[in-house]
């Protein structure tokens, strides 16, 4: 309730033209200000119709209390980074540990990255050099540089920790790296313009998208050779990929703005789903509840319900989201937003952006997460 003081004349009426008539007296009447006059209260009656000082003080105290409560809440907020999250900063030639703000430089054109299952090593491809780098995550020391061929793209570690793998789109090969020996042991020809890799959980098979073709190559890790190719019609330029938790469905993101779900048992495309514009990463979050995908020429991350194959939400994260990866427990999803140089953190319970973490450099392109890579 807003109060104001009104001055009412008491006693006899004044004579016209005599402003200081001693017989005119005033008394102060406190009134409640009707809502319809709020906003004009300073001019009502042309006199002292201002809100009471006590109200102003109360408002200030309430605001101060709100600030204290919100600050305390922020200090005790959830842990958005329960395990290390690594983002390539392509235009800064670096990889950043987003959760600790540590940055490892001298990784020329850091493009794609992957973290080993034990969380101790990173494999990083270069956008500008025909190279991939093996990096110690503790020290940032470059343990090895591998000549993988022109136009390097995706990289991956096998879950058993034995192999690293790096794509050369220009050569149409994947380089197989013996992690323990830190040696490139073989280049496997997989097809036209390969792009990224996904191992099965038993490390026996690696799927490789063929952006210049229409499908996905299957590499047998025992023989280190391509043994099959799965056609994925309905999309243009298979780009990034992930597997469902039961490894029966292959999710493939294309170059233009579509996602295909492939049933690996029947080798049939069971759904083609329109998503944001151009290419991006894709991640089936641990637990399998949702599939997230970025869209670098757009400003949204699409959330797909794998039960219905429908986009259930487009989450605005800022212009240019590309890499997307969930935390190990599937609670948070991280999106590298290339035009704003931020890492958007999405709460998978509310499907809202809960944090926009500034990246430690420019063009955060790809995200890797220990325990979900």
């Amino acid at each position: 309730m807003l109060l104001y003081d009104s001055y009412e004349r008491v006693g006899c009426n004044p004579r016209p033209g005599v402003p200081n008539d001693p017989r005119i007296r005033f008394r102060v009447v406190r009134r409640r200000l009707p809502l319809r006059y709020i906003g004009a209260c300073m001019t009502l009656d042309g006199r002292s119709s201002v809100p009471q000082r006590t109200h102003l003080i109360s408002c200030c105290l309430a605001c101060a209390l709100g600030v204290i409560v919100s600050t305390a809440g922020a200090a005790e907020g959830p842990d958005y980074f329960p395990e290390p999250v690594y983002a390539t900063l392509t235009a800064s030639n670096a990889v950043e540990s987003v959760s600790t703000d540590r940055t490892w430089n001298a990784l020329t054109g850091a493009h794609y990255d992957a973290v080993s299952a034990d969380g101790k090593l990173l494999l990083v491809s270069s956008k500008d050099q025909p190279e991939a780098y093996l990096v110690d995550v503790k020290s940032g020391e470059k343990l090895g540089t591998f000549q993988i061929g022109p136009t390097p793209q995706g990289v991956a570690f096998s879950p058993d920790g034995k192999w690293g793998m790096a794509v050369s789109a220009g050569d149409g090969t994947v380089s197989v790296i013996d992690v323990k020996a830190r040696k490139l042991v073989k280049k496997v020809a997989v097809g036209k313009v390969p792009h990224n890799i996904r191992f099965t959980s038993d490390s026996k098979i690696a799927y490789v998208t063929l952006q210049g073709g229409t499908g996905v190559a299957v590499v047998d890790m025992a023989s280190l050779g391509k043994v099959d190719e799965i056609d994925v019609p309905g999309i243009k330029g298979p780009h990034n990929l992930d597997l469902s938790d039961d490894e029966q469905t292959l999710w493939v993101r294309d170059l233009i703005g579509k996602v295909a779900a492939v049933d690996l048992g029947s080798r049939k495309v069971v759904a083609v789903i329109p998503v944001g514009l151009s290419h991006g990463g894709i991640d089936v979050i641990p637990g399998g509840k949702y599939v997230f995908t970025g869209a670098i020429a757009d400003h949204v991350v699409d959330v797909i319900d794998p039960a219905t194959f429908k986009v259930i939400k487009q989450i605005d994260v800022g212009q240019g989201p590309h890499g997307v990866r969930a935390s190990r427990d599937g609670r948070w999803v991280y999106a590298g937003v290339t035009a704003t140089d931020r890492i958007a953190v999405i709460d998978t319970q509310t499907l809202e952006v809960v944090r926009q973490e500034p990246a430690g450099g420019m063009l955060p392109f790809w995200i890797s997460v220990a325990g979900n890579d």
Partner: protein
Amino acid sequence: MTEAAARQLLCVLSLPLAGFHHSMRTFTMKIQSSRHISRRAVLRHAVFAVGTVAALPLAGIVSAATAAATEEAGKADQKAVQYQDHPKGTSACANCANFIPGAHSGEPGACTVVAGEISPKGWCLAYAGNG
């Protein structure tokens, strides 16, 4: 956007603001000059003020429609994807999977995801190395 279009947009934007300002000014003058304010006067001015403010989003729609008309349907704006007409390091549109070459080598072409004329030497965020 042309100068004429900009002037037109400015005009559309300023109309509701002017209406709102005029209504509030008249209302303030009235309550300053008279101790008695009729309910009808208050309502009349309130309706006019609210109406003019409510018209503001229309100006936004006009602006958005003008911008959209300049873009090719379903494609990204060049500015949004930070398009530049020169390469970024070793990356250039001529080597991008999304580039549609011009009639002759070296001539501007188009793009499957970005609107407008695209230089083969250009680059943008949506660059996808084609090997």
